[in-house]
């Protein structure tokens, strides 16, 4: 593989020789989600120990598409600019049926956001940047080749047994966050099971290197002439690497399909030439499943350990980062100052809601791509047929509804005269502010965002946002002024056109109790 995998250093942990004091938080898994979790907690002043059974970044790329929201989260974690600079920025997706284009979309037609709709960047780069950042932070104790082999919990703590090259030891912490991936050993050790669907389909996923000159766009084919009856995806990554996904059918043998002598001819047909090298190949079957609850006592699940989706929609890694965004400040408030355990319930409530939206979208896409024989296939084929002729059907063609943050259900104070896009439960929309960006000045602490009005003095930092046409469209609508309470994860907590100190204080209390 072309990526230069440098093993991370293993250091014999202190627990091998003497019992370690109880830690604040143990994170199991140093994939994108576990690493992001550690940095996010550190940003809130919480120390953590991160345990990973491995000592290299993701082998093969897996995730490539990182959404605007993920980039905004990366920005707070300190790797946003790096990811943006290295990634391939794209926003146009084209969908083809046979050899004609039936539909295209532009993901971010609006100006005035620091981050683009998506960048494509191999998962190993993201993990490398996160590891580099984590290693700079004293509050993070990153332990490679530390494999968790047993988990238990008591009323007020979680306990793990760990295997290292030098033997075994145990650790305890106030809380444990399981970020140990789709096959989550922690999940199995607690006897918890995933619920949902498995799609009986095989997909060949290949990263290839070629000097070809494809646009920075997502190209998706239904029943292309070069791969009859199936679907195909082509997407550009940095370093002249392209992702190719080919649907294979359920009757194929994954081990056979992975062999270069079988992969290469298929890819030659996609590209129309043989001037490429294989970088990574794998065959997947996709699932859309989740845990019923993401919090079990002192153990919280985040990322693929909590939910898995098919990748058409890029909702896997991106939603894991949204879990981190949601859980970080809540867990920090509990660990740092004994805030209400209602915050963990709210993590469970909000992120299972987010997962359901992702599961729904991913299953619908997968179903569209792999319809069951009979009427399902009839409807799918007729949508494609109509899409070639009649405008309305183009949008019905479903090759992936790309990851966007969900709106959390909220009963917090709202004024419906204000724009729907920033209603309580939504992620605050970015806008230019002074020489920088609104989301940067919101940062990771609660804020009162005041537009054309004064904010009450309640010990929360106030961000004053000057009215511009963009700010009016995103935050005011036809109202003369507005006050927004923004959570540390940049989600709108409550908003008013006119209010008083008591009402704002009540909303702040609700926020810290996980009620909004």
């Amino acid at each position, binding site marked *: 593989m072309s990526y230069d995998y440098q093993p991370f250093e293993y250091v014999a942990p202190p627990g091998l020789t003497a019992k370690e004091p109880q830690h604040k938080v143990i994170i199991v898994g140093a994939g994108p989600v576990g690493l992001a979790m550690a940095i996010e907690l550190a940003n809130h002043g919480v120390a953590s120990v991160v345990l990973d059974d491995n000592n290299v970044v993701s082998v093969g790329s897996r995730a490539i598409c990182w959404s605007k929201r993920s980039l905004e989260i990366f920005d707070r974690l300190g790797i946003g600019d790096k990811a943006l600079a290295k990634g391939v920025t794209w926003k146009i997706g084209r969908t083809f049926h046979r050899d004609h284009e039936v539909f295209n979309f532009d993901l971010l037609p609006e100006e005035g956001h620091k981050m683009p709709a998506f960048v494509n960047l191999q998962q190993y780069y993201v993990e490398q940047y996160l590891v580099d950042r984590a290693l700079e932070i004293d509050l993070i104790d990153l332990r490679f080749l530390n494999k968790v082999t047993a988990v238990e919990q008591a009323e007020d703590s979680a306990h793990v047994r760990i295997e290292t090259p030098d033997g075994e030891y145990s650790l305890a912490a106030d809380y444990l966050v399981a970020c140990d991936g789709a096959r989550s050993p922690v999940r199995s050790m607690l006897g918890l099971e995933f619920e949902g669907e498995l799609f009986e389909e095989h997909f060949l996923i290949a990263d290839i290197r070629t000097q070809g000159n494809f646009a920075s766009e997502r190209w998706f084919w239904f029943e292309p002439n070069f791969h009859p009856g199936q679907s195909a995806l082509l997407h550009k990554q940095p370093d002249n690497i392209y992702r190719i996904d080919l649907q294979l059918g359920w009757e194929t043998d994954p081990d056979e399909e992975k062999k270069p002598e079988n992969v290469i001819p298929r890819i030659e047909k996609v590209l129309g030439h043989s001037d490429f090298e294989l970088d990574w190949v794998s065959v997947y079957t996709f699932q859309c499943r989740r845990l019923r609850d993401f919090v079990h006592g002192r153990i919280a699940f985040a990322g693929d350990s909590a939910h898995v989706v098919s990748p058409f929609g890029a909702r896997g890694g991106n939603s894991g980062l949204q879990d981190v965004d949601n859980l970080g400040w809540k867990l920090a408030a509990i660990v740092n100052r004994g805030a209400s355990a209602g915050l963990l319930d709210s993590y469970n409530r909000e992120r299972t809601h987010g997962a359901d939206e992702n599961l729904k979208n991913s299953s619908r896409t997968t179903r569209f791509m792999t319809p069951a024989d009979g*009427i399902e296939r*009839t*409807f799918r*084929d*007729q*949508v494609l*047929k*109509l899409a070639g002729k*009649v405008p*309305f*059907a183009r949008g*019905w063609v479903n090759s992936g509804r790309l990851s966007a943050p969900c709106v959390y259900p909220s009963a917090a104070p709202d004024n419906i005269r204000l724009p729907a896009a920033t209603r309580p439960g939504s992620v605050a929309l970015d806008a230019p502010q002074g020489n920088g960006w609104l989301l940067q000045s919101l940062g990771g602490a609660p804020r009162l965002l005041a537009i054309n009005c004064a904010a009450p003095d309640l010990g929360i930092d106030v961000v004053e946002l000057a009215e511009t046409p963009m700010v009016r469209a995103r935050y005011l609508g036809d109202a003369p002024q507005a006050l927004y309470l923004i959570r540390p994860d940049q989600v709108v907590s409550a908003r008013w056109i006119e209010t008083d100190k008591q009402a704002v204080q009540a909303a702040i209390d609700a926020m810290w109790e996980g009620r909004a």
Partner: protein
Amino acid sequence: MSLIKTDNLPEHDDFYAELLATHKGLSEAESHALNARLILILANHIGERDVLSEAVALAREVD
């Protein structure tokens, strides 16, 4: 709006005949496909989610 369940289509006998005529000579699979297209086209034209859900439920329930 809710689904109209009383007579709403003038000259429905004509439409019924037209519907049968358009399926003439089609295989069963081709007829299924044509019906599917027709549903999609009409659904888009109706454009009201609630009405469509009522129609789907009614079609199911009558069987």
